[in-house]
């Protein structure tokens, strides 16, 4: 695949510290200026099992994960047994003594000697790994110092000694592994962020100040980032008793003036659906972060899938408009989270950001976001000219009525889950019903007017066009590049918004390609069906993945062989 990238896979049991080793190594690589793409695979258990933390890294842009492994860091025997076959030619196993890896090149680390206490093993592994890649010691040194600074000078000193020993030990070993090519210049000051952190930062940048949630993998780290980082920015949060409460609490807060969101995954969202409908009829803004994982029901709780598009699209009884944003990269997570808060406030209807476990946990090297360049998020009204005549649901051409926050004026703000008149009072008459229903539905055309166009990567009239949404982007881009290098005309069309859809934005691309293949992380091609429903366009073929693992270039290429 990418000539310059290498793939490091750290494997072991939950609780052995592999995520710590992985995160430290990733941060060192980001600080050194490399590109990274992290794929985390873990099981639904607290200790034990088999988990992996894969870092694909190099000096050039990286689109996504790969299967082949260059450096296999094995914290237990199972890691070698399970991933030995994925080891590439010239690859190396890094393992402690007592782990068998006879038929591969193995760097056998005397962890007991290098790390006198078990708690130093993570730092020893970092030293070994950093040295194997010929990383600068200074970067590792600073990272370890900062990581342990809170624990006091003694701890920092002890860890630095372990780091130095491990780093030097590698230099004395007789093995062959090519150093990483030098990192490009100008990448200083980048951030190490995964999708969920970027969603949280985007929310905070939009002024999000209220979160209610019920913890659910893989969405929880959005909530934890909002709570951990948002407190000093004025965010109020509450862990609700259940998802039903979470969304209702967020709606109450939004009504009363907060910029609200909820974070959840499929099963939790299923419980929120009644509240989505409430948001629809009361026209109360809310952002719903729905981080997908495989269902049905509990499914594969820690794995990835793009299986909840239909759920989000049709959630809620009755008819009301909505928008579904589907970021494909960590950067898009930030920007679409920001946009979601603006859209929901302006159109007073629920807005979804659909991510998935892969993107949620996908650490990347990201330029700090330019906060000054962000547009101001729209706000509700705190004053009104004629308080006595104020009508929360005043009829209007674009379906949007003045949203006033209660308590600021003498005007009364009445919202009602029953069909209501312009003042917010129950009104069951047919004329009113039609007027209010049409008012709400009218917002759909406004939302459609500002749909983010899908992005085309490659030529406009390719022989093969890959159509994807959300996190499927990376795999498709890599496939496009590989096939283009082979002299083929391949392009990728990526949807970062899957609802509403505007034919004029994408039909020319679909019609201009010889062969169009949909690529989705689900078993039934939900987006392809949606496109067909809306436009009548039928894909020439589908690449679908629903085994719980993310789409990657190898998978897509292999599937294409039997299609094209």
């Amino acid at each position, binding site marked *: 695949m990418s000539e310059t990238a290498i793939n490091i896979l750290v494997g072991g049991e939950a609780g052995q510290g592999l995520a710590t080793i992985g995160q430290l190594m990733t941060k060192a690589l980001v600080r050194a200026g490399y590109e990274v793409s992290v794929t985390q695979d873990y099981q639904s258990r607290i200790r034990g099992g088999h988990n992996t933390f894969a870092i694909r890294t190099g000096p050039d842009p990286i689109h996504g994960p790969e299967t082949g492994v260059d450096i296999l860091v094995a914290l237990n025997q199972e890691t070698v047994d399970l991933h030995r076959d994925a080891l590439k030619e010239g690859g190396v196993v890094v393992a402690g003594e007592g782990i068998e890896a006879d038929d591969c090149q193995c760097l056998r680390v005397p962890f007991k000697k290098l790390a006198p206490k078990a708690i130093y093993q993570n730092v020893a592994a970092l030293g070994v790994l950093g040295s194997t890649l010929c990383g600068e010691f200074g970067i590792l040194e600073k990272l370890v110092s900062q990581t342990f600074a809170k624990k006091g000078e003694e701890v920092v000193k002890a860890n630095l000694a372990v780091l130095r020993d491990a780093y030097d030990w590698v230099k004395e070993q007789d093995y062959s592994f090519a150093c990483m090519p030098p990192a490009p210049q100008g990448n200083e000051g980048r951030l*190490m962020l995964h999708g969920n952190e970027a969603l949280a930062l985007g929310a905070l940048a*939009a002024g999000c100040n209220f979160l209610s949630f019920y913890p659910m993998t893989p969405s929880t780290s959005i909530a934890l980032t909002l709570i951990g980082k948002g407190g000093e920015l004025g965010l109020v949060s509450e862990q609700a008793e259940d998802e039903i409460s979470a969304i209702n609490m967020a709606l109450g807060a939004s009504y*009363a003036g*907060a910029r609200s969101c909820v974070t959840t995954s499929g099963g939790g969202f299923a419980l929120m659906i009644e509240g989505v409908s409430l948001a629809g009829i009361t026209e109360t803004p809310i952002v719903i972060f729905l981080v997908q994982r495989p269902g049905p029901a509990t499914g594969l709780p820690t794995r990835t899938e793009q299986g909840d598009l239909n759920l989000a699209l049709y959630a809620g009884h009755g008819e009301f408009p909505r928008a579904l944003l589907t970021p494909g990269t960590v950067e898009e997570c930030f920007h679409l989270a920001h946009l979601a808060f603006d859209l929901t406030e302006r159109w007073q209807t629920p807005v979804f950001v659909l991510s998935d476990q892969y993107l949620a946990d996908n650490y990347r090297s990201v330029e*700090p976001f330019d906060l000054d360049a962000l547009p101001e998020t729209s706000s509700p009204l705190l004053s009104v000219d004629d*308080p006595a005549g104020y009508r929360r649901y005043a009829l209007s051409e674009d379906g949007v009525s003045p949203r006033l926050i*209660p308590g600021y004026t003498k005007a009364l703000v*009445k919202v009602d889950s029953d069909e209501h008149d312009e003042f917010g009072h129950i009104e069951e008459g047919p004329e009113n019903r039609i007027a209010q229903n049409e008012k709400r539905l009218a917002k759909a055309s406004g939302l459609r007017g500002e749909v983010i166009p899908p992005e085309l990567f490659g030529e406009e009239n390719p022989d093969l066009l890959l159509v994807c949404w959300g996190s499927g982007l990376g795999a498709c881009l890599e496939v496009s590049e590989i096939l283009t290098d082979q002299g083929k005309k391949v392009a990728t069309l990526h949807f970062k918004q899957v609802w509403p859809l505007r034919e004029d934005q994408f039909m020319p691309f679909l019609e201009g390609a010889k062969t169009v293949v949909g690529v989705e992380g689900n078993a039934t091609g939900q987006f392809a069906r949606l496109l067909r429903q809306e436009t009548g366009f039928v894909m020439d073929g589908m690449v679908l993945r629903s085994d719980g693992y993310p789409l990657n270039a190898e998978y897509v290429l292999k599937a294409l062989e039997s299609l094209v």
Partner: protein
Amino acid sequence: MATVEDYGQFETAWCPGCGNHSILKALKTALAELDLEPHQTLLVSGIGQAAKMPQYLNCNMFNGLHGRSLPPATGARLANPKVKVIAVSGDGCNYGEGGNHFLAALRRNPDITLLAHDNQIYGLTKGQASPTTAQGQKTKAQPGGQPSVPFNPIAVAVAMRVSFVARAFSGDEEHLADLIVQAARTPGFALVDILQPCVSFNKVNTFGWYKQRCYKLGEEYDPTDWGAAVVKASEFGEKIPVGVIWRGDRAPFEDFAPGGGKRALAEHRVDKAALADVMQSFA
């Protein structure tokens, strides 16, 4: 000065003789007594006949979903200290569909007054057993008699030592209004469980039935004596105490939710410098 007239007069969809009429009157009296102007008052309701209360009052209103009056009330309370939050709904709404929210509210103790209209029956759906229907009481849906024992909201609220727990009878409007005033003046969660007849569907717990049994707690009763409150909370049958059953000193939820309920979140603006610092913590 806020007056009863400020809260308006509306035609209701309630049956003649329904206890809701006097609860509405008592609430208006209480709001005037509290000197809350309509725009300073927020009524949050669930679904049911009791939940229609905000429709018949001039005030801010969030009329939400069945069983879900307390979550949006909590959210609104955390977001906006400019309005007094009062949740209104029935026994089915609060103790059945919304049972988990009721329990969570007792744990949180948010500064919300909950007026639970308790007629021991589902009225709007025409007469099924509610969580407070007596065991054995026959209905169309429970022809062999309600098999479960009734939920005791008062006892549970006392057990959780929320700020204020009272039982009222809709037949004594003046007393009810006074209890609502006391509840609203208490920081923290205030439950007023209001016994009321359902003239259409509860032929057992009639106006006369309550009238005969309800007695006012006297001066000698000390609502700050938790042990006594636990005992009093369980008294329901031939004699039913009405009045303040328990008055606690638990701090309201807002004291623990950082920034919650103290700042108006609508006035929040993004502090870009602080956010840039936050962003740098990922470098």
